Structure formats: C-alpha cells, structure tokens
C-alpha cells in the first residue's frame, strides 16, 4: 500500500513538473475535456436535481413544522454547495471517468502500447497522464458548479411542489441568498478540484501498473474506482476540517 502511495505521489509530482507542456498537448487536453463533459453532463443534471429534491424533502417539513421555513433555502443551499455536490459528483466522475482512464491506460499497458511509446522516447506521463489530469482538474469543478445550480433548482422545485413545505421559488432563493455566500460555493468548487486530482492520479496510476490480460485490466478498473472513492471521502473530511478553521 505504501509503495502505491509513494508511486502516486511521484506520478503527481512528475505530472506537475510537466505542466508547462500542457499547452503543447492542448488538443489531447481538449479531447479529454470533451469526453468528461459529454459523458457526464446529463448524469450530473439528473443526480444533482434529485439530490437537491431529497434534501428539501428531508429537511423542509421538519423546519416548516418548527416555524423555520426561512431556513429551508439556506440548509438546502449550503448542504448542496459545500458537501453534496462536490462529493457526489466526484464519486460519479470516479465511476464514469476514473474507470475509463484506468481501463484505457491499462489496456495500453497490457498490449505493449506504452512500451512502444517509450521506445519512441515519448513519455507516457506527458502523453497520457498530463492531458487527463489537466482535463479532469478543469472539468470537475465546472461540473460541480453546474451541479450546485441544478441541485438548488431541484430543492426549490420540491419546496414549491410539496404541500408540507410550500415555499415559493422566489422565497426559496431569497432565503438561500441570505445564508449562502460566494465563498461557500468556492469552498465546494475547491474541494472538487482536489478530488479531481485524486481521481486522475489514482486512475492513471492504476492503469500504468496494470499487469496480466483482460482480468488485470478489470482488476485495475475496480481498484481505481474503489480507491478513488475511499480517498475522496478521506480528503473530504481533511479538507472540510482545514477549510472550517
């Protein structure tokens, strides 16, 4: 385990050192960016709309019963932008994009394509890892920003439609504006940026160390997703603790 952590730190460091080359690989970065956005946007919308709705459904009636209806917008707004959107979207992206990264790089490893790159003195880090990490580091915060807005919309819709809550669109967003500040949204977006690094590094690393045939690729994909999710949850606690202080 410690060897893997060390390798991942080294991979991240080498990718950071290669960052000035990102412009040179901009076409590959753009391709990956499009892949991430295109593959995930609809899922992000559906997931965040219903998460917003569920939070409103769970908290709304309780708060309204206690004459705290003005707090519903704030509770839904804060929980979505600071916690639920970054964590849930990162888990979604780990499943969709992290698995694809590990599978693609893993199959390139198994079928000697990475060896072929090395014989041509093309660094797999520059060619494969850098574009993926750059793309996900930009795409995930954007997706999370989008998810926050859609999540709020979901919360507002449920608050308006549910008889036990019965808060209008305007009242919901007025309450939300009173409590949620721009730094709360920035907090969530920053978290998602850090989670993007985790997903990118873990998935690319798992791809690069793939051994064996198709079973090895499958194992790498599973490990990439599971390890990403575990690290996202751990990082979430650490980041929340740091950002709260």
């Amino acid at each position, binding site marked *: 385990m410690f060897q893997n952590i060390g390798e991942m730190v080294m991979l991240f460091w080498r990718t950071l050192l290669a960052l000035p080359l990102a412009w040179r690989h901009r076409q590959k970065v753009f391709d990956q960016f499009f892949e991430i956005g295109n593959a995930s946007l609809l899922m992000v919308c559906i997931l965040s709309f219903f998460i917003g709705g569920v939070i409103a459904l769970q908290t709304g009636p309780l708060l309204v019963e206690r004459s705290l209806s003005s707090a519903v917008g704030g509770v839904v707004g804060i929980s979505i932008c600071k916690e639920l959107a970054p964590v849930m979207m990162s888990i979604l992206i780990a499943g969709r994009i992290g698995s694809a990264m590990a599978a*693609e790089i893993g*199959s*390139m490893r198994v*079928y*000697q*394509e990475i*060896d*072929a*790159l*090395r*014989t*041509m*003195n*093309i660094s797999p880090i520059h*060619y494969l890892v850098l574009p993926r990490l750059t793309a996900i580091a930009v795409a995930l915060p954007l997706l999370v920003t989008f998810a926050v807005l859609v999540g709020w919309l979901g919360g507002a819709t449920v608050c308006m439609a549910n008889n036990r809550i019965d808060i209008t669109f305007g009242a919901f967003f007025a309450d939300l504006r009173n409590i949620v500040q721009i730094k709360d949204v920035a907090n969530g977006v920053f978290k998602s940026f850090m989670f993007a690094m985790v997903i990118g590094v873990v998935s690319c690393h798992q791809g690069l160390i793939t051994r064996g045939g198709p079973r090895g690729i499958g194992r790498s994909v599973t490990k990439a997703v599971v390890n990403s999710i575990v690290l996202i949850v751990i990082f979430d606690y650490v980041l929340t603790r740091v950002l709260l202080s």
Partner: protein
Amino acid sequence: MNSAPPNQNQQGVRVQVKGLRKSFNGQEVLKGLDFEVRPGEIFVIMGPSGSGKTVLLKHLIGLEEPDQGEILIEGQPIQSPEVMAKYRMAMVFQSGALLNSLTVGENVGLYLSEHRLKSPEEIERIVTDSLEVVGLKGSEDKMPSELSGGMKKRAAIARALVIEPQLILYDEPTSELDPLSAVVIGEEILHLQQRIHVTSLVVSHDRDLAFGIADRIAVINEGRIVAIGTPAEVRTNADPVIQRFLHAEFRPESLNSQKPRP
C-alpha cells in the same frame, strides 16, 4: 529511445552484451549472455518459446534493466543519456503495438509529430512514403483494428522506418503470419538493411526466416547462448539441443505408430 533528428549518423551501430543476467520473482531468465552485433548486420536470435528472447530484446531497447552485466551501444552503456541523444533505435513489437486510438497514419508519424521534428505537411509526406515502402499505401486513415496481423506488423515497421533508426529490433516478426506474409516481412527486413545499413536484431523461432535473412545467428536456450555463428555454422553445430530445434517437424506417421491397434 531517442529524439535525435533523422538523417544523422546514418550507419548502423555496434551492440555489445556483456554478462547479462536477469531474474523475475527469483527465477533466473537470462543467465549471463555475452555476444556482439556488428554494425549493419542482421543478427537473429533463435530459441524455443520461454527461452528469454523477448526479455533480452527489452533489455536491448532499455525497457528492462539488467540485474547484472551491461549493454553497450558503440561502447557506451545503453542507460546513458548520451546514447539516447546520439543514436536512434526502434523496435517492432510482436503484436505491432500500434496505438489503437490513432489511425495508421497517426501511428506512423507519431515519433515525428510528438517530438515536433517536421512540419505537419512533411510528416504527411513521410508517412505516405513509409507506408508505400511496406506496401500499405492508402492505409493512412484506417484504424489498427481494420488491419490484418501482417498489415499491423508492416505498419509497425513503417513506424520504425520513420525514425530512420541505426538499430532496429524485431520481436517475432513473422509469428501468426501466413507463409506469404512472412516472406514479405523477411524481404522488408532485408531491404531496410540494404537501404539504410541499419543494424537489425531479430528475435524469432521461425527457422526459414532466420536462415533466409541472417548474417549471423545466436541460439538461446534456457537463458544461455548455446551457439553463435553464420547460418552455415549453426546448421552444422552438433549440439543436440540445436539439432533438435532445427530439425523438429510434425510427423503424422510417428503418431499413427503410437495409436493402439484394435
């Protein structure tokens, strides 16, 4: 393993392997190999499957590091950055190892485009020329999955050609090919050697290919070289391992004689 611009140092290079040893999980695969490949010659390494041929080839291109011993290119260790900067080397993998996400043309021009050695128009011209040399003219826009095994290998040769290498390594270039395609690949190896005087190192257990193209042959068995010399010298070597390897053939009558009689 280099990014030196083509059209320099056009002569093939000398390769020396000294006391090369390598183990995987405690099992010794290469048990002290010593040999030399002269500039511009076609050197074939033969041996049964699992004898360590591919592992040796990976050491020669720098994909593996030896436990003991050294590999010298023109007298300099292969790991030294000078070798990487000064000499151009290429490898044709057994599977071709074309990047499946790129077209054949992009694969062939990858070295030039990634190292920005030529303009896109020039790369396009070089790719077309290289594919024509290996008989794949017009395949630029095809994906590797659309090619047959033999075509993939020829595309891999074209990719190696673009580097204008001084040392080219072939890993089982005729495996999984029909006899006609195998002959075409053998001819390509010969043409290349005659055209650009590249040092060619071929790993194969195809006896027809080895004796057809080799200047010298080394026979490797269980991680050791058991014979080295010209094709004629190897053919007349009395070592029973070599004789068994060279004369192994399928004899249906021997099977029939072993069948239980009713």
